[in-house]
């Protein structure tokens, strides 16, 4: 008899989603899918607004990656204004963007995923959370909290407040950098770098125990996409060219300007999820499956562009670049890179320059902004009328790009671990853990607590509940 297992909600991720696992007649996994059950509608309700309000409105999409949405929106607005933000304003935006990356990666790695590595995938679910870790590994929890607050404080100091600041505006930023703030941040950087280094150390040791997870956590060939620097083959999160490489990561399939994204990225819609399924157009759907985010970034670029992160990258190159398990590792390497970059940027003499904003009205009718959010490539695309009133919008958010890969990853893990006859909580946790490697951000909120109940139901083909398990 066939059965369906539903994991609803998926815990320790950002947003609301569920997983269904379809069991075949013999109790083995026939299919598994990841569904996003929330709907936001931002593309619709920006219609009718003046275009320059969009950075402020779009920042509200998310409380974690506000900065990324504001940057993508501001760049799209600048395309509409025919303005290119360079120099100090661009550097200031980069610093805040790295800070945003740090706080977001700290959240994903320490708060949401580290309980799995440190306590074990099968450990007591009541303790398998950041609160449980407080008892066993308080120093690691402290590091996670410190790293996240460091990133948030940079945002607060430079942009005015931690969540939803309005400092990033169409045309630049609203305030130049204060010399005192620069000194404060520079003074804290060595401590933060040491923190990231010791996190890398323990995680690399811990990885040795997770060979099996590395083997089946969304480990399959896909393409990879990210922004790269416009001139050099180094990581560039703020603005650049888009590049797609093949699954061997050696061949560049496409290298294009953001305005061409629709020639390369198609968007398929599935009836059971509010998340679209983008694919690499030249290969068609679903063969054009690709991944974005930290793992993809490290796979696409030649170098990180900062010395310490480049050493780590060399070590990372020895691993299987196709396994999504290494998203976690890539995240830590990016943190190291971000700390190095923040230091370089703050050391620039021009960073205190007060000229940080350009003014212009709508000069063209369409604008596209692309940036690398912590979770991957983020595309904002707007259309405006002659007066600058928004007439349409299209967003391709980082998590969306990974939709196909997440679905395939869920299936792979379910096939390996789920045994329809004897369900255990640890099996289901692995199915969720593969989703966590991608760090999907499904909305603005973190549901990061073991208190959240997880309901698992076994249904017969007619939909009747055969067995139900509750946890939390």
């Amino acid at each position, binding site marked *: 008899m066939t059965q369906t297992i539903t994991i609803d909600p998926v815990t320790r991720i950002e947003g609301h989603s569920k997983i269904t696992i379809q069991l075949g007649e013999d109790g083995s996994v026939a299919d598994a899918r990841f569904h996003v059950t929330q709907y936001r509608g931002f593309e619709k309700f920006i219609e*009718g607004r*003046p275009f*320059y309000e969009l*950075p*402020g409105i779009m920042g509200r999409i998310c409380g974690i990656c506000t900065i990324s949405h504001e940057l993508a929106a501001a760049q799209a607005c600048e395309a509409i204004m025919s303005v290119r933000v360079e120099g100090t304003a661009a550097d200031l935006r980069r610093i805040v963007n790295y800070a945003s990356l740090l706080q977001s990666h700290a959240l994903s790695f320490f708060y949401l995923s580290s309980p799995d590595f440190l306590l074990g995938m099968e450990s007591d679910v009541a303790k398998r959370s950041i609160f449980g870790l407080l008892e066993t590994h308080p120093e690691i929890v402290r590091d996670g909290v410190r790293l996240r607050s460091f990133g948030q404080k940079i945002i607060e100091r430079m942009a005015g407040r931690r969540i939803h600041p*309005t400092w990033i*505006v169409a045309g630049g930023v*609203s305030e130049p950098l204060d010399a005192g703030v620069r000194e404060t941040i520079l003074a804290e950087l060595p401590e933060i770098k040491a923190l990231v280094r010791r996190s890398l150390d323990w995680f690399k040791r811990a990885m040795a125990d997770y060979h099996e997870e590395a083997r089946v956590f969304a480990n399959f060939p896909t393409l990879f996409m990210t922004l790269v620097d416009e001139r050099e083959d180094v990581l560039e999160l703020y603005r650049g060219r888009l590049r797609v490489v093949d699954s061997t990561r050696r061949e560049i399939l496409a290298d294009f300007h953001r305005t061409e994204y629709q020639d390369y990225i198609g968007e398929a819609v599935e009836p059971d999820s509010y998340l679209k399924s983008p694919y690499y157009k030249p290969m068609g759907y679903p063969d054009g499956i690709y991944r974005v985010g930290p793992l993809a970034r490290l796979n696409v670029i030649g170098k990180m562009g900062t010395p310490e992160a480049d050493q780590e990258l060399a070590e990372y190159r020895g691993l299987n670049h196709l396994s999504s398990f290494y998203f976690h590792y890539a995240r830590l390497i990016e943190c190291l890179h971000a700390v190095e970059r923040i230091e370089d940027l703050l050391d620039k003499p021009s960073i205190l320059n007060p000229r940080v904003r350009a003014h212009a009205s709508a000069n063209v009718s369409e604008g596209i902004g692309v940036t690398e959010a912590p979770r991957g490539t983020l595309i904002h695309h707007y259309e405006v009328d002659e*007066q600058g009133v928004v007439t349409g919008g299209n967003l391709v958010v980082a998590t969306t790009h990974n939709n196909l890969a997440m679905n395939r990853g869920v299936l792979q893990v379910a096939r390996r671990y789920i045994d329809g006859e004897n369900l255990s909580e640890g099996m289901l946790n692995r199915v969720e853990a593969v989703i966590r490697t991608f760090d999907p951000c499904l909305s603005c909120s973190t549901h990061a607590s073991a208190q959240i109940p997880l309901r698992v139901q076994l249904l017969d083909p007619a939909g009747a509940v055969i067995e139900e398990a509750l946890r939390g």
Partner: protein
Amino acid sequence: MPVRSRVKTFTMDGQDVSGHESETILEIARQNDIDIPTLCQLDGLSIIGACRLCLVEVVGWNKLVPACATYVEEGMEVVTNSERLQNYRRMIIEMLFAEGNHVCSVCVSNGNCSLQYLATKLGMDYVRYPYLNPDRTVDMSHERFVMDHNRCILCTRCVRVCDEIEGAHTWDVEGRGYKSHLITDLDIPWGDSRTCTSCGKCMNVCPTGAIVEKGKPAGEMIKRREFLGYLTKMRGVNNNE
């Protein structure tokens, strides 16, 4: 026979006060540091008593009166801040929020808005009426200013300043009831108006983010209203009379 005095003595919240018969309850309250919330009233513009936020009680009178539009009288006992008044004032603000599309968090006037300020000050922590979510437009046709009907509360300060101070009378109100809305000239796009002098007075007197400078993102719109006092003083006009 008693001489008719033009100076009236009366009480306000139990305090003895006096005022000239040409002065309103609101003016005397302000002279005595008694705070009465207002929205449509603005010193230097004519009085219309439209928003009803400044309603006060007068002992023995059977209805509430707007402080901005009621002249002082001998012996009156004015109450400016009873629980009943606070409740009505909150109700008015709630209705204004429910009637338009006021999304403070992404509004250009966030932090510099009279409506938002009053909502906070009067303790509006929720809106008891269903939001109407009306379908309203934004007029971006003017070169320098934007009219966002979503945020208009129809206080008509813009209409009055344009007519009484600038002398252009570009603004007016069209329609009735909840369909009322502001128009420029004979309901043409603001940018096409031939009477508008682009002086910006309407933008500065607007209490919310309805009339704003073009290009200002969330929270950056700060209105400057000092000009009104200087202009009326220099010209010796008093629209209150």
